[in-house]
């Protein structure tokens, strides 16, 4: 069991807890960001092979021994994608919060009961 896996899991749980318990809309968005970070950490950990190095060729990682020396490049590429998407989605959520505040002058989730289940 890798420690980064546990760390990512803990971050995911902290983010979920923040999203479920906090009342302030900004704090809910921050909770989402923390979940995001946890998921990235878990994906990167899954692609990591112990004792190997980043998938970039240089003096030590030559074309001949690249396959034996590097970690899995696919999860890294996926996380690269996920970080940018996470950033864009966070920006979109924050602008929703700003818009809601302008409309209702309140940041508490309790004042928005339309979508309550």
């Amino acid at each position, binding site marked *: 069991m890798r420690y980064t896996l546990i760390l990512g899991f803990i971050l995911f749980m902290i983010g979920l807890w923040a999203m479920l318990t906090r009342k302030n809309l900004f704090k809910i968005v921050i909770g989402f960001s923390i979940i995001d970070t946890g998921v990235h950490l878990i994906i990167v950990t899954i692609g990591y092979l112990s004792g190997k190095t980043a998938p970039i060729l240089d003096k030590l990682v030559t074309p001949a021994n690249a396959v*034996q020396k590097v970690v*899995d490049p696919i999860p890294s590429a996926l996380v690269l994608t996920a970080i940018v998407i996470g950033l*864009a989605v966070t*920006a*979109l959520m924050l*602008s929703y919060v700003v818009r809601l505040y302008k409309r209702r002058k309140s940041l508490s989730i309790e004042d928005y009961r339309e979508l309550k289940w």
Partner: protein
Amino acid sequence: MIKRLLIIVVIILLIVIFLPFMKNVILKDSLNELSSGYVEKSVSDLKTANIVTAVVVTFRGLDTLGEVTVLFIATAGVGLLLKRKKGEKSKKSDKRPASEILQTGASFLFPLTILFGVYIFLHGHLTPGGGFQGGVIIASAFLLLLLSNINFQFNHTVLHWVESLSGAFYVLLGLLGLILLGSFLNPKFLPLGTLGTLFSAGAVPLIYSFIGLKVGSELSNILDSMRGAEE
């Protein structure tokens, strides 16, 4: 009280679900078939030193196109939500201007940050980095200007043209690969060069530069919308 209890139950249940996963995760000590295929191909076929770049731009190029689309839609959404009404655009803010030190420091750092961002996306196929990272660095340079100068205005025509043209050229490069070599986003229509030099990897640096410009202008757009919202 009941709500809080429910939340705790939900979290404990999630832990119970995921814990066996974490305990039984199989730690590989070698690459699987797909990954080793990607590593070999990006070295021999594409001459791309950064294998992650080869995966992002070429092997999974369609994913990246989708990602750029998602980013574009998110930017459009932010712009729509935080739209300023016409007329209040030219409102002078009554805030104090930033101090001399901040202004001088920002105008000194701005060109250097832009240069660094361009360097990051031009060398995306050689070093850690690429279009997305370079674009974010460029947007952070604009953030520096926004923070230090309260009357700073983006030139929206330039911003929109850069964004649209870089997106269009990205798709055009993909179509060029389709026409010349028979597969979408195939970068091998340009000479491949030697591994590890700036002019290598076919059209990969070109594609990543367009991605960098697009991401940079889109994120600057988001920053501009958000700045407009606070007034």
